[in-house]
């Protein structure tokens, strides 16, 4: 099972500013001062091994969109944030207009940052493609129609070339879809959101974003621990610090890296992927949060327990389970 992140940013797409590009350049040029690189390989080695991560990478700015490649012929994608555009472009490059494909979307919820990529998804315009939108919310089509009708967008939803199907799901029910076993779980978010657990061939991944975890809600904690149980990967909304999540931003519907580690430890998950990053944070801050989360995992781990691997999502990241 391979996971690819097409969009990892929360709430709103962002782009890197010139100021931040120049800051990365300054870091790299200062580190390279006085050095001589005889070959491209030597330069690449320097970049990979000696420069800070935040100087050579960017987390990217697209909103939520995650591909789950379980090896079957149909595509599986969680959410349609702005990252969906790049996924769609890659599909056009791979298949062109003449080879119809089946795309299965699993929607956490219908807030704008999770559907905004759909009008820019080229395969939706190609007759022959089949787009199945799996959702637990009642009448998800209404959200897509509102987004893709006047005055919001010039191309009406009903004029798209692909066949678009809305597949209702119910939380806590296990279903077979696109060659995988899927179960949804209700989450705490304004208007409700749903997490999904995908399983195939002994591998499992949980996609859980836009989900607030309140430390005092023991019943909710137990439901999520069961949902995450022994997962190979948990993709987790860690937009806020815990201090924000229990004070200023309480009931805003998001969670923290602290809650992520606690739940993953309790459920014996293998790998935590921090996701739905705060749009106000730059690469340096997001990298700091990632490293702090690794440290927090070390501090909180029970003696003898295997370590929980902690990663942080960035646009373009691929992980194999």
């Amino acid at each position, binding site marked *: 099972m391979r996971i690819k992140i097409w969009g990892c940013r929360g709430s709103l797409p962002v782009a890197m500013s010139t100021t931040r590009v120049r800051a990365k350049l300054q870091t790299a040029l200062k580190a390279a001062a006085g050095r001589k690189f005889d070959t491209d390989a030597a330069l690449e080695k320097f970049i990979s091994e000696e420069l800070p991560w935040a100087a050579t990478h960017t987390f990217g700015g697209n909103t939520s969109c995650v591909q789950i490649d379980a090896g079957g012929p149909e595509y599986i994608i969680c959410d349609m944030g702005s990252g969906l555009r790049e996924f769609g472009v890659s599909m056009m490059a791979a298949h062109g207009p003449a080879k119809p494909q089946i795309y299965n979307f699993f929607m956490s919820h219908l807030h704008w940052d999770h559907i905004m990529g759909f009008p820019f998804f080229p395969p939706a315009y190609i007759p022959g493609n089949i787009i199945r939108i799996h959702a637990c919310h009642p009448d998800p089509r209404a959200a897509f129609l509102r987004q893709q009708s006047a005055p919001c967008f010039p191309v009406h939803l009903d004029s798209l070339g692909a066949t678009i199907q809305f597949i209702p799901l119910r939380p806590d029910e296990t279903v077979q879809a696109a060659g995988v076993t899927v179960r949804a779980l209700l989450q705490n978010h304004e208007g409700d959101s749903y997490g999904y657990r995908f399983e195939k061939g002994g591998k499992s991944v949980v996609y859980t974003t836009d989900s607030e975890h309140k430390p005092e809600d023991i019943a909710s904690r137990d439901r999520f621990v069961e949902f995450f149980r022994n997962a190979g990967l948990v993709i987790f909304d860690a937009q806020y610090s815990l*201090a924000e999540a229990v004070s200023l931003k309480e009931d805003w519907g998001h969670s923290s890296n*602290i809650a992520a580690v*606690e739940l993953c430890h309790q459920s014996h998950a293998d790998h935590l992927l921090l996701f739905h990053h705060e749009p106000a944070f730059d690469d340096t801050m997001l990298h700091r949060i990632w490293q*702090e989360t690794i*440290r*927090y995992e070390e501090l909180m781990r029970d003696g003898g327990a295997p370590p929980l691997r902690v990663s942080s999502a960035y646009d373009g990241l691929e992980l194999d389970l």
Partner: protein
Amino acid sequence: MKIETEILGAGLILKPVGRIDQTTAPAFQERLLAALDSGQDAAVALDLSEVDFLSSIGLRALMIAHKQCQTSGAKLVLFALTPVVREVFAISRFDTVLRCFEDRGAALSSLTA
């Protein structure tokens, strides 16, 4: 969990001992809020020198106490954080919200300032 208490003029020094986790946090929160509930002159200095573990629900208890102080005018300070708890405060950003001091003297001075 054991919470040692020392009377301090109009306020208290509270010294919890052990872990503040899912099991112990409710009692800790109740004791802390009660100590802060004696009006705008209430003052609590929380000695964390014997706390070796603090989970999210323990941190939430501290945030609730902090919010109560903002409403009532009571004062809450913390001191003698163990290295692990200090790191947890930094990672969770609680160090940007709560008033933390190195030692008892500095904490008590801040309450009388």
